């Protein structure tokens, strides 16, 4: 039986690494070691302490500073093009996610994977506001976020609610709100969509971001009463019964201010339905735990967590906490603690990149002092374009509002990250990091390069010994311990590769330590090893 009972005891290395991989983008040898000494409670509590961002907004290298909320606003010729600036916002988010010790950015990513937008629906500033909204609710109420997201400028424009008016409602947002963002398909009918669209008539964006939401301090859209359908909206009895079992009727607003009340009533109606909580928890389960939801998981995990969510104004922090502390999350709720969950998901390009950067201690150009290399060269061209787009990950720019197939497409889910068209980009990124060059290029610089020699020097207990070197490098990079066969493969076929013996290596390393010799040779051998580890099937999983 799957169980939400709290897991007790010290985590140990295997489970500490599992928790850090699934709940954050920040894994490192030191962090895994530190967390392995903690109890589950200590570890999860620590991850739930949200960290402030290191930089509160992105920089533009042309402008030499931030452009968002800068007064007076820089002229367009002072800064990079809008298209680039949007990529820099993504770059800023990625770099904050990389450095986030807490569950914060992973939760923002989770919320984003539901509340899909497209960067190009608005200006870079609108996109930034959207990300700040996710940040604001990263552990907060999903219900309240639903109201705020409906009024978010980028969302208003993305799903066309800016065009939704009383004379001829545009159903785009209404449909996706119910189908994708809150309830899931099959929990409403076409008349409900039409009624929902009417509730939403008249909400439109404020392009210059002058309307500030006092709850969040972030720019929001506005209510245009002239475009609002003032009639009462009746929803179906089947899907939206009121307390007496009658069809829910939402009273039409009497003025612009009352439109927010009407919207609130409508959101309440959605969140009064059992299905809404379950829909959100299933999404969370698939993001953090496993793609497989059996009837047992549904009754033992999904339903109790959904009940918690409902009972607590849909506040997601405590539900995440319960899940991450549960025996189930660690596969400790049945006789075999190694047959499910651990290592059972394919890493998204996001996890592949950020986990690798952190684990291998990639030195990334500083956003403030080396702005162009940080934003324009490394993150935009190297990461977002070469590592993500080529690997099928259109971050913040999915082709449909359903988002990334890895989080919704039955039956494959995360498997959709890995197919014959994404394999190349995934397997080319280690080469990029090792050589410090862009995808398949010998000339174009990536802006960052792994320093494997120093990494090994400071992280491996005894780099002279091949066996220790290989074992310790593989350790923690794979979700489960590699067997002797596999270690031999990496040691003999890849690292020594028939060209040197263990004794040769000890000598090569010794000469480096005493006289600084052999740097090129060492980097080559380590590069081969790290590359092979990173494009092994094991490293694709987390």
């Amino acid at each position, binding site marked *: 039986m799957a169980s939400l009972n709290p897991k007790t005891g010290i985590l140990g290395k295997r489970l500490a690494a599992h928790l850090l991989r699934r709940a954050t983008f920040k894994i490192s040898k030191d962090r895994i070691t530190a967390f392995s000494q903690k109890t589950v409670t200590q570890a999860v509590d620590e991850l739930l302490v949200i960290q402030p961002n290191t930089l509160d907004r992105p920089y533009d290298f042309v402008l030499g500073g931030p452009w968002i909320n800068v007064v007076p606003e820089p002229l367009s010729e002072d800064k990079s093009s809008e298209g680039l600036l949007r990529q820099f916002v993504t770059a800023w988010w990625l770099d904050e996610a990389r450095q986030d010790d807490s569950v914060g950015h992973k939760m923002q990513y989770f919320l984003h994977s539901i509340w899909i937008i497209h960067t190009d629906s608005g200006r870079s500033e609108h996109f930034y506001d959207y990300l700040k909204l996710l940040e604001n609710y990263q552990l907060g109420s999903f219900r309240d976020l639903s109201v705020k997201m409906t009024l978010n400028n980028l969302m208003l424009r993305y799903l*066309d609610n800016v*065009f*939704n*008016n009383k*004379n*001829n*409602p*545009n*159903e*785009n947002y209404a*449909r996706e709100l119910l*189908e994708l963002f809150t309830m899931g*398909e099959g929990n409403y009918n*076409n008349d409900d969509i*039409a009624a929902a669209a009417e509730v939403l008539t008249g909400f439109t964006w404020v392009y210059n971001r002058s309307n500030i939401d006092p709850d969040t301090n972030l720019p929001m859209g506005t209510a245009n009463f002239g475009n609002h359908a003032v009639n009462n909206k009746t929803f179906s009895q089947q899907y939206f019964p009121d307390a007496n079992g009658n069809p829910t009727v939402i009273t039409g607003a009497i003025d612009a201010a009352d439109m927010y009340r009407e919207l609130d009533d409508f959101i309440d109606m959605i969140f009064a339905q059992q299905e809404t909580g379950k829909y959100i928890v299933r999404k969370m389960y698939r993001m953090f735990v*496993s793609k*497989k939801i059996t009837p047992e998981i549904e009754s033992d995990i999904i339903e109790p967590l959904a009940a918690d969510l409902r009972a607590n104004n849909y506040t997601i922090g405590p539900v995440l906490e319960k899940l991450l502390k549960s025996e189930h999350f660690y596969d400790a709720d049945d006789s075999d603690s*190694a*047959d*499910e*969950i651990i*290592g*059972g*998901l*394919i890493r998204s390009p996001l996890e592949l990149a950020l986990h690798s950067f952190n684990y291998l201690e990639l030195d990334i150009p500083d956003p403030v002092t080396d702005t162009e290399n940080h934003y324009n060269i490394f993150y935009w061209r190297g990461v977002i374009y070469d590592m993500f*787009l*080529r*690997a*099928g990950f259109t971050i913040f720019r999915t*082709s*449909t*509002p*359903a988002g990334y197939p890895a989080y919704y*497409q*039955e*039956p*494959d889910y995360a498997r*959709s990250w*890995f*197919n*014959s*068209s*994404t*394999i*190349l980009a995934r*397997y080319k990124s280690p080469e990029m990091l090792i050589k410090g060059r862009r995808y*398949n290029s010998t000339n174009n610089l990536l802006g960052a390069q792994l320093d494997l020699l120093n990494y090994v020097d400071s992280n491996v207990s005894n780099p002279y010994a091949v066996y220790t070197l290989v074992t310790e490098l593989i350790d923690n990079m794979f*979700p*489960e311990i590699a*067997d002797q*066969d*596999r270690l031999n493969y990496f040691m003999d076929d890849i690292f020594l590769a028939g060209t040197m013996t263990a*004794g040769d290596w000890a000598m090569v390393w010794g000469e480096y330590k005493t006289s600084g010799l052999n740097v090129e040779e060492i980097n080559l051998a380590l590069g081969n090893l790290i590359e*092979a580890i990173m*494009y*092994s*099937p*094991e490293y*694709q*999983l987390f």
Partner: protein
Amino acid sequence: MDRRKFFKVSAPLGLTPLLINGTPLKTFANSDLLRAMDCTGVSERVIVLVQLKGGNDGLNTLVPLDQYATYQSLRPNIALPSTGANSYLTLDNTLPTAQHMGLHPSMQGFKSLYDDGLMSIINAVAYNSPNRSHFKSTDLWLTGGDGSQTNYNIPTGWMGRYLDHMFPGYAGNPDTLMPDPLGIQLGDNQQSLGFHSASEHASAVNLSYASPGGFYNLINEIGGTHVANVPNTEYGKELEYIMNVEDSTARYAQRISDVFNAGSNSAAVTYPAHYFANQLKTVARLIDGGSKTKIFLVGLGGFDTHVEQSELTDPAIGRHADLMYYLSEGVKAFQDDITALGHADKVMTVTFSEFGRKPIENESWGTDHGTIAPMFVIGKGVQPGVHGNNPDLTNVDNNGLFIDEIQHDYRQVFTTVLQDWLGSDDTAMGDTYFSPFLAQKLALVSPTHFVDPSCYVPPLVNLPVSLVSFDAYVVDDYDVALTWETESEINNSHFVIERSKDGVDFMALVQIPGHGTTNQAHSYRTIDVNPFFGTSYYRLKQVDYDGKETIEDIKAVTIEQSSEFSIKLFPNPASKETTLKVISEGESEVFFKLFNMGGQLVKELTLPVFIGQNDIPINLRGVSSGTYFVQAVSKKGHKFSSKLMVVD
């Protein structure tokens, strides 16, 4: 009956197309006139599926001219004009009034395909209880499903099921008979659900964002050796999945590059410079290069035109107009290209979209999700014409949706194409889940190209594994080596070696993966390191992907009992670990001692021993390098001593 332009091009050997009141006869499969056909080339035919993503607005693709005033009143802002430079293109005045329609003015290419007798239009296509979610409806179109409870959640794609039937065991396993991926997908680097099959390999290779010409070189540079011991866990299953994708990608990579480089596009044809046309250009080149891939899937996105479907100033230009242009010009260029290359008799193109849009426009110069939309079938083998009438624009509910205007099920179209064009029999259609539509096929394939049942293409031959040899013999006094060779294999999932003491009751010993489908010879070898004493029997069993088992051969082996107890030590010299190999007739214990050259005891172990061969690892970590002395004594007094070299 009016004369139609396409009569001229489509009537073969004086045969008048069977048309009644403008609607081609449902089926002419039983017409004796068509019986004696030439089957040449049928098995080489392919289909190209064009997916219009987002829900194409059927009413601005084909304007119902018989109800133009109603159309204009439903769509005051976006109705395509009837006059002026940008007016719709009247498709064919010779059709009955109920089929008078106007193509979007951007679709000159489609107009000329129609005029040349290369296009069939199927009006008002959907499925029962249509769903208006993009994602659900797309899934339904790709899985062969519909809104009914039974067909709402089919886990596999219809293309995958079809290819599984026609090419059993070939998904991911190329050979000379079928060297190519069964399906190729372009334009979207997420794998299409349509190609999802029940077999462990995906039935299609996805070429999006990779240059087919250089595909092999890139693939060839990457990837490593597979994990040998895959655990039976979720982790293990995902490892298997990844290794399967790696395998089939690598197996096809060289071939795809070769085919692409061997093919070319016609110099006389200019494709629009657009990603959609580029996909078709690649398909044409792959076909020209000799690809035997059966189904190509290409895609054009952006049809979710809720907003600004057309410009305020001119309903004939804007987003939808651009899409119509790229669709029409891309397909036209593709058709011209394959014609110029001499492959027109091989290729049929079919367009589809997850749904149409509401007949009524919204306030944003756009249209919301609807139900029905037309499909287009294009190619030299097409029976040109129009199926069904314009939908009735007055039959609209108060949400602005058509009420019950579905005239065709999309599976009628695909069933017809798979059977009458690709020549697949009823059994194949059963496995594709299309049987219910066999009785409702449409006349989409011209008599010159229609596949008669006598020409139906069988699934690619499924020869059994041809075994050359199977041997079992003793090695190293106590191990049994099992070796066998195959000349070719088809559909071979794996072998199982079974062992028996009496030759009657066999127990599975080990499972060895097969090579799927291959024309190359393969040899296999495995060792039984723990055999029975005396005579025992080994049996080789072969298992197909579908679970079918064949007993291939049985061999007897006798292990001589040279002594009741023997001890060996290997490797020697050793580092980190060595193994004490003990063979015993009974359960016992061995006392193991390791002395250094000074005679000091370094390590002492008491080791349990079981019947048969025992491989007992001796950990040498922490034992510094040098020469040592090993002494092992059994409970019964058997002694063994040896020198052991420990090295770093």
